[in-house]
């Protein structure tokens, strides 16, 4: 504590918790520019997460399986309800939809390579299907988005599954953005738009509204593809009980449920941080919807939004998911936000780990860009290898936990294997607060 000139002690300067330096810097930025902040990624705020859950492991009443020796299967089939060709995956970790446009062609290729080597699927995004992506993905899910950029029946029939995108965790109720810096000749031509414009994707589908229409849209897509491939419906974690119910009633084979930590290529920061629900909070209502309809494990639930580790995978599955999807984590595995580019991140006014201006197309790692020079920094073969390794590690981690809980398949994990560290996590996951047999709202409704 310092004194002023007259020797009277001065109180330590106190920062406001309300008007923090972060908040103030955003006020100054808004005042200077007159436009909201746009960025990529998912919610950065602190949220209840899977880290707030713990597995109990085995005990006298539950015996464990031997690590590395006793069988613990990881395979999952998706879409067997209506499709004659369901998707069979070796591991329950899929790659979430990310567009060519938001990502470079080589980055999409790497996602396909890594996913294929690990025995799982990858997913197109708002920009159509590229030949590289189809060629390098043994199982490719083709997104059917409001913009319908690049949508055509030939690609639709090349897909192994179709994912009708209703919402995205980072921006429930919002459409996409791809700023002009990334609208190269190829991106412009695939999207049928002039080069260099700031491209906006619609927030809702142009030719259907509501669950009754969705049922007919699903019928049309099935007719066009001969009832061969599964049809997923992707929703943001806004109203998971009702959205899951409506999607199942409309005829979905699988539900993709995306929490607010799920990333986006670009949208308003206020959208990412203030709309939607944490991934931890959305899974149980969705599972309950499936159970209420008698469809749990018949219509598969794929959970996404901030999945990072095998522990996250195991926890999602214990709470009732059939599989998970990763996006941001996959990009980090490819090399996004790597500290080796720190000097260049600094030039962009940021630091490794915090870089989220993916929409500006200046990614030092050469992944979220269409700049030919930056793209050269990224090797799709090496990227694919890194992604495969990461998927393998996540799977081994999830198996380690499952064996410790005495489960010979990841699907056999159950809520009873978990406890929560916090009241919030106990309420959201509906598992007991550690040391108790109780969770908030135990007898209440969703």
């Amino acid at each position, binding site marked *: 504590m310092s004194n002023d000139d007259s020797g009277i002690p001065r109180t330590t300067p106190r920062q406001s918790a309300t008007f923090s330096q972060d908040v103030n810097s955003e006020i100054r930025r808004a005042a200077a520019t*007159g*436009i909201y902040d746009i960025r990529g990624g998912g919610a950065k705020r602190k949220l209840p997460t899977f880290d707030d859950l713990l597995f109990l492991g085995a005990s006298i009443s539950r015996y464990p399986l031997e690590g590395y020796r006793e069988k613990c299967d990881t395979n999952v089939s998706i879409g067997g309800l209506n499709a004659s060709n369901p998707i069979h995956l070796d591991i329950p970790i899929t790659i979430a939809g990310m567009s060519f446009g938001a990502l470079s062609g080589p980055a999409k290729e790497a996602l396909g390579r890594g996913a294929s080597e690990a025995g799982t699927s990858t997913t197109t995004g708002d920009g159509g299907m590229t030949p590289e992506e189809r060629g390098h993905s043994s199982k490719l899910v083709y997104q059917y988005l409001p913009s319908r950029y690049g949508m055509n029946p030939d690609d639709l029939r090349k897909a192994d599954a179709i994912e009708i995108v209703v919402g995205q965790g980072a921006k429930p109720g919002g459409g996409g953005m791809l700023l002009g810096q990334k609208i190269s000749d190829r991106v412009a031509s695939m999207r049928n738009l*002039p080069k260099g414009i700031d491209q906006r994707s619609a927030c809702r589908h142009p030719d259907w509204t509501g669950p009754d229409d969705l049922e007919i849209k699903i019928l049309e897509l099935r007719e066009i593809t001969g009832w061969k491939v599964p049809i997923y419906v992707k929703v943001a974690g806004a109203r998971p009980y009702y959205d899951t119910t409506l999607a199942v009633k409309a005829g979905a084979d699988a539900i993709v449920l995306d929490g607010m930590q799920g990333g986006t290529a670009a949208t308003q920061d206020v959208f990412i941080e203030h709309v939607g629900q944490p991934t931890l909070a959305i899974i149980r209502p969705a599972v309950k919807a499936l159970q209420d309809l008698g469809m749990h494990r018949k219509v598969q639930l794929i959970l996404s939004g901030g999945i990072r580790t095998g522990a996250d995978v195991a926890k999602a599955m214990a709470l009732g998911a059939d599989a998970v999807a990763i996006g941001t984590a996959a990009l980090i595995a490819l090399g996004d936000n790597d500290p080796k580019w720190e000097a260049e991140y600094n030039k962009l006014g940021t630091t490794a780990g915090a870089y989220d201006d993916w929409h500006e197309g200046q990614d030092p790692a050469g992944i979220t860009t269409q700049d030919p020079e930056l793209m050269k920094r990224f090797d799709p073969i090496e990227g694919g290898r890194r992604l495969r390794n990461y998927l393998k590690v996540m799977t081994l981690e999830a198996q380690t936990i499952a064996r410790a809980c005495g489960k010979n398949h990841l699907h056999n994990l159950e809520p009873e294997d978990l406890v929560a560290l916090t009241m919030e996590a106990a309420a959201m996951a509906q598992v007991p607060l550690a040391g108790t047999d109780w969770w908030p709202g135990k007898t209440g409704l969703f």
Partner: protein
Amino acid sequence: MQTYDLSTGSLRELNATLHAQNEATNQTTWEIMNPKGAHAIACGLDSPIEVTVRGSTGYYSAGMNQQATVNITGSAGPGVAENMMSGKVVIDGDASQYAGATGHGGLLVVKGNASSRCGISMKGINIVVHGNIGHMSAFMAQSGNMVVCGDAGEALGDSCYEARLFVRGSVKSLGADCEEKEMRPEHLEILRALLTEGECDAKPEEFKRYGSARNLYNFNIDNAY
């Protein structure tokens, strides 16, 4: 001519049969009886066949059409010829909302009126409507041509890109960033060809052209509201 009766056959069997036709098929003419408003009739076709639906259809008839000509003698439900890639779809009656939505190519002709959101997000399709079109038509229309021989409803061409919109009658209001454009000789040529192909006897000189003012092409806070 091959005839398929939907009162005795199934939609699945009909579409599978039509999908099985290829470039070399000699069964080039098809007639579908008793559609009774069924959805997804003749969607996903991809061969140079001519299909005539005798009656009215439900949602998404001729959806994602390629190469084929599909005639509907009654009216068509929502999303007729949605995402059409090529070929021709002709509706003798009216078309409900979203006609020709996101179409990439081909020609859609509506001899009656089309409802709201006609040509929404169109990406290269040509649309000729003999009557009127409803509100929010050509919303976010990217490319292609829309010809309206009657009147257009509110907010025509809102947030459109490079699509050309030709209207002979009145326009109740223009949407954001849509403006009247100069009708140049090349536009009259495009119109003339489309009117001929769309079996419409209107004269190109009677139309006005509308399109994007291109003020929304890059984000500018003064455009937000």
